[in-house]
């Protein structure tokens, strides 16, 4: 588990100006390769990077609200403090990406690979993370209020200090190595079944609804 210090060995960034592509609000860069480019702090609202290759791309503090990263490869990308509200990241690969402090409110991360991603303090309120792979992700102090994590894999993830108000956790898989917020641990243990040694799934309770939500903590 990460100690919060990003341990990825970064390659020297490629300045955006040296590439032939134009990066601007709403641009369509589907399928392009911008690996290693430095696009930090840029205004890129609504840009399309669907199927793009963005390995180790630097998008730190960029405005990417409403952008599409459908099926993009963002492995080890730096998206720290980026603004990704309402962005579509379905099927994207974000393994070991730095999303610390990113704003992902209402983002769609269905079936995304976030294994080993750094989401410390990220705001995922209302985000859709159905079937996402969050194994060994750092979710400490992340806001997951109202997020939908049905069938997500949280094995080995660290959620210490995370906020889970109204979070949908039906059929979430987790493991002995998963660290839950202190105020949620007992409830989650109580509503989970054992799949195999050290592997658990949170029950989908109730016949008509999948609404397995943790009650808000007492104020």
């Amino acid at each position, binding site marked *: 588990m990460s100690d919060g210090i990003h341990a990825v060995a970064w390659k020297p960034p490629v300045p955006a100006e040296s590439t032939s592509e134009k990066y601007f609000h709403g641009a369509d860069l589907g399928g392009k390769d911008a690996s290693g480019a430095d696009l930090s702090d840029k205004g890129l609202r609504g840009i399309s990077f669907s*199927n793009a290759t963005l*390995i180790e791309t630097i998008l730190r503090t960029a405005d990417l609200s409403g952008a599409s990263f459908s099926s*993009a490869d963002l492995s080890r990308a730096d998206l720290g403090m980026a603004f990704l509200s309402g962005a579509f990241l379905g099927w994207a690969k974000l393994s070991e990406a730095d999303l610390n402090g990113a704003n992902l409110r209402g983002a769609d991360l269905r*079936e995304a690979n976030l294994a080993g991603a750094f989401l410390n303090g990220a705001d995922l309120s209302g985000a859709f993370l159905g079937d996402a792979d969050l194994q060994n992700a750092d979710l400490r102090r992340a806001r997951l209020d109202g997020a939908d994590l049905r069938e997500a894999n949280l094995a080995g993830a660290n959620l210490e200090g995370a906020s889970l108000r109204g979070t949908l956790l*039906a059929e979430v898989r987790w493991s002995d190595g998963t660290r839950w917020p202190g105020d949620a641990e007992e409830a989650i243990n109580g509503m989970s079944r054992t799949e195999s040694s050290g592997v658990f799934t949170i029950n989908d309770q109730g016949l008509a609804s*999948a609404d397995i939500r943790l009650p808000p903590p007492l104020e």
Partner: protein
Amino acid sequence: MTGLKTCFVVISDSVDDSFEDLVLSIETFCPGADIAWYNSGRRRETPFALERVVPDRPLSRWKTTPAFFDVFEWSGGRDYDCVVNVETDLAFIKPGFLGFVESQLRDVDYLATGLRYRVPRISMWPPYRTLGEEREELTSMLGIDHLNRAFGAVQVFGRSYISALLHSDRYPAVRAFVERNQRPGRSNSLQELILPSLADSLGVRSRPYPDQLTTLNRFRPYQSGLDLEAARSTADAFFLNPIRRSATDPVRGAVKELVRSKNV
């Protein structure tokens, strides 16, 4: 070389460079196996002197489930120990797959990537969600109370799976269900649901590929050079999927080189 009689079936509507890359990679890294083509397009000539699955028919991208049942019926008249479906977005990258399959088939009859048992009814997974009201009809027809799921590429169907299916009393109803599903608005990628579920229905043994292979055989994103490196050093990783079809894609180029260097 193993004692296993294996047939790879390429289900494809076109024959292009990536088709050739796939065939060459199988011939190189899985020597001795047969390769057959299920033509889901309109081309007439069979490429590379491959065997051809007959009958076949044109099928659209997300509606290829009938091809599997045509393949099962075609292979039923042959003496294969197993049939493996492959797509032209993938390629084999090192030897050992046939030995791996042989060892797996000692105690299972069906192998698939990401095989999960009992899809929860709250699942948003598209093949399950788009099945809609037909879910209950399907489980009832299969005589089970649940459905399973798996990724569709490189499923291994052992002789017992195919034989049990073709001799099952349920088979006519299953085929009819698959045909009805071809209508517009019905489930997409039904094969990713019905084929793993059939394993339970038929009472044959099933197993997922090892967990570490799940990211090397996936829907998207396309595999990168880093992924290829990872695959080469990962135990039991013998193929990579998906690879961009462009001849200029560096991963495709690297795979071609692996094949070429093995054949030198």
